[in-house]
């Protein structure tokens, strides 16, 4: 129980750090006012970095193109919008997403092209591996039936199990149409 709590706290910490990183410093905000043509003044777009409560025509439109008594009529026509963006968030998110897609693509290519070639050499390399990595042997509590307990063996075993699982899922969904038709 205590270790599951420890793991929970670890995961929570990672998530919080991640969130803080995402909502990072370079927060850009600006107010944009779009003013249409008025009498003999052409339309213009004004931008200024103001906070949300100052986002109105009077604060943003500088220099004011109309004389004082016309300001109110001019400002009624203008439309002001406040927006806040964090460019770092966007950059980090897109880069993370693309790297995940790239990693998946590479793994897919590996599974299709490289893996079948490696599989052929397996029966010959396994005994050598066992001798070299004997220091990496960790005590296994549940008694493994002698499958070898080096890191590579375990990764292989895990990968084989996962592949069998995905194959079964594929048969269920794509071939037998038992689920998710």
């Amino acid at each position, binding site marked *: *129980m205590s270790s*599951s709590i420890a*793991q*929970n706290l*670890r*995961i*929570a910490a990672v*998530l*919080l750090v991640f969130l803080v990183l*995402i*909502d990072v410093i370079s927060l*850009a905000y*600006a107010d*944009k006012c*779009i003013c*249409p*043509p008025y009498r003999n003044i*052409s339309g*213009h*777009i004004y*931008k200024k970095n103001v906070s949300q409560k100052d986002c109105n025509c009077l604060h943003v439109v500088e220099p004011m193109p109309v004389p004082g008594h016309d300001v109110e*009529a001019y400002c*009624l*026509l203008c*439309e002001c919008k406040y*927006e*806040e*963006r*964090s*460019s770092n*968030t*966007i*950059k980090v*998110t*897109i*880069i*993370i*997403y693309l790297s*995940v897609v790239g990693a*998946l*693509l590479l793994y*897919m290519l590996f599974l299709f092209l490289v893996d079948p070639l490696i599989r052929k050499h397996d029966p010959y390399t396994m005994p050598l591996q066992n001798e070299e990595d004997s220091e990496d042997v960790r005590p296994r*509590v*549940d008694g*493994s039936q002698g499958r070898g307990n080096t890191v590579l063996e*375990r990764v292989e*075993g895990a990968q084989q*199990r996962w592949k*069998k*699982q*995905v194959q079964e*899922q*594929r048969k*269920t*969904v*794509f071939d037998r*149409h038992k*689920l*998710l*038709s």
Partner: protein
Amino acid sequence: SSVESVSHRGIMRNACLATYLLTIRLFSSGISSATPTEETNDAGNLMDFLDEPFPDVGTYEDFHTIDWLREKSRDTDRHRKITSKSKESIWEFIKSLLDAWSGWLVMLLIGLLSGTLAGVIDLAVDWMTDLKEGVCLSALWYSHEQCCWTSNETTFADRDKCPQWQKWAELMTGYTEGAGVYLLNYFLYVLWALFFSFLAVSLVRVFAPYACGSGIPEIKTILSGFIIRGYLGKWTLLIKTVTLVLAVSSGLSLGKEGPLVHVACCCGNLFCSLFSKYSKNEGKRREVLSAAAAAGVSVAFGAPIGGVLFSLEEVSYYFPLKTLWRSFFAALVAAFTLRSINPFGNNRLVLFYVEYHTPWYMAELVPFILLGVFGGLWGTLFIRCNIAWCRRRKTTLLGKYPVLEVIVVTGITAVLAFPNPYTRRSTSELISELFNDCGSLESSQLCDYINNPNMSRPVDDIPDRPAGPGVYSALWQLTLALVFKIVITIFTFGMKIPSGLFIPSMAVGAIAGRIVGIAVEQMAYHHHDWIIFKNWCRPGADCVTPGLYAMVGAAACLGGVTRMTVSLVVIMFELTGGLEYIVPLMAAAVTSKWVADAFGKEGIYEAHIQLNGYPYLDQDEFTHRTLATDVMRPRRNEPPLALLTQDSTTVEDVETLIKDTDYNGFPVVVSHESERLIGFVQRRDLILAIKSARQKQDGVVSNSVVHFTEDAPQIPASNPQPLKLRRILNLSPFTVTDHTPMETVVDIFRKLGLRQCLVTRSGRLLGIITKKDVLRHMAQMMNQDPESIMFN
């Protein structure tokens, strides 16, 4: 306990449906309390992740139903044990507090992760949708709107364009006008769309086939007690998130709301495996999944309350009050997380958030009700056509080429969508434009009204104006877009990529609503002296808001397809922030539900559940007058019930029985002569117990007598040692008499979540009714095919 702390190996090794590594590691053997030590201690250890899992994957087999009563009683036992131990020492007390809090911690984690993933999805979709048309040169990761917002070179005349963002043809050739440029843009658009969807379907096929589809029908079934191993696993989570972005960006007519519910439930499952309170108990796990579904809808629509109601109305099966409060918390945390990521820049959670407060008038209820009727009719049409197409995909050659099907549908969608500017952009942007009212500065064609040059009114109080030529051409294009979307969504929903249904339905409704709204607006302007308009619409006033009609239409169509009522209205008014529009939304939602129910009782999700034959016991009433004898097995022409006696069966007999039949459990009676019922034993428990006994206990051979009684039967000393299996016997199976009406039996199954029920007469065991029998009987009574029920 010797029976239960079995090394569960060998028997289940051939079950290829082993769960993912981490879930297995911490799942362990649910029955026993004396678990092997690696269950909780080495959870963080990579080497143990790679260990061979126990072949016994939890306590239930894949594609079986859980026993709700057993899960509930196990949870009560666990809680009582913790409470009694908490009085022993301070540390035990703290542990009991942590156990009580673990539920809230899980909700917090689910909210955080769902919000983060939704933010990532929103940002990535934004960028990749615009990638089909062009790229931002100043910063490659900006979408069109972000690129132009930060640029300083936009002019008033071209306020939607900017020089930093260039279309592909302009980038490659340097020209911006001309037929060749248009064709090049067209070609590249189609190419990008095909690339995205091909990538999506390949990833789904290679890594996680369970990630396709919407996910809501399967989650409904899972929450009603069904087990689908791997459906809420880590790979499914990863692949669904990644391919959802690709599928939506490819321009297909699908949404991301349904898949977001699946993603949120996967997050829920992920965090459940960290706490043994939830990972070992399937009933408690489903409470967490209900709350996670609420969080999913909350981030999809920015509607926390709507999310909770959606989970209550659509997705969950049992929804106790405790789950209500926890769902609300999870939804709130998720919405807050998404808001802090702020993917749309306006501190809103959804692209089509509108906020206007123009009032509506009683006379406008007539077009609103008409929109409701349209929504109901469209819902019926969509459900019938989509189910027919999915059935064709399931049974004919079409189902053999899923990748090709996705590519062809994407190609057709892209080729037909590009020429029409309303279908070229993403559906969310289309809905956003349709929902928004036209200020005087909008430059789109839809807002090409003839402005009075002397008018000087603030931008949100523009009076009704006559439509310019741009509006009429926009209406034509919108009508074409409506027909296109109605047709193409039928073929898109249900393909082998993550696909949701909410956004396309809302788009159809929004287009129809806007057309009706513009029509009413122009009628009110040009004929303001008619009686219907005279009372409430003065010339020079802002009477009709076409954007409101679009919202009402969207609600009507969504209600017609999914048959949601309260949750739909709450989601829509949380989307719009306008409490004054509740009455029109309700009117439309109720009308569309009535019209659609007149043609068929089921919404799209129930229809898909029926298509797949999931064992989902509906909440509808069973009103036929059949009795339990009519449904129970064995029937007259079937072999008699497979029974076990309490102290005269041998181990060999039991093994033969298990080998010859495939029943999930066996009743235990006093003897074959007087078939008085003692209890019920599960097949799985029998297999495991006998296997363990053969390995661990001395003297247990094939001729050993199996006894379910407390004391061993009187046998001579020379006979082999008897095997006591009382621990695995359920001494309180549910029984009904043979004259119990099926109405009551169905009610019992539904309310208690039973898997099987025994039928007795004057104490003698007659037969058994399983959930599958009940479902088949209900299907038969409704003249559907009883053989379509696939699962137990």
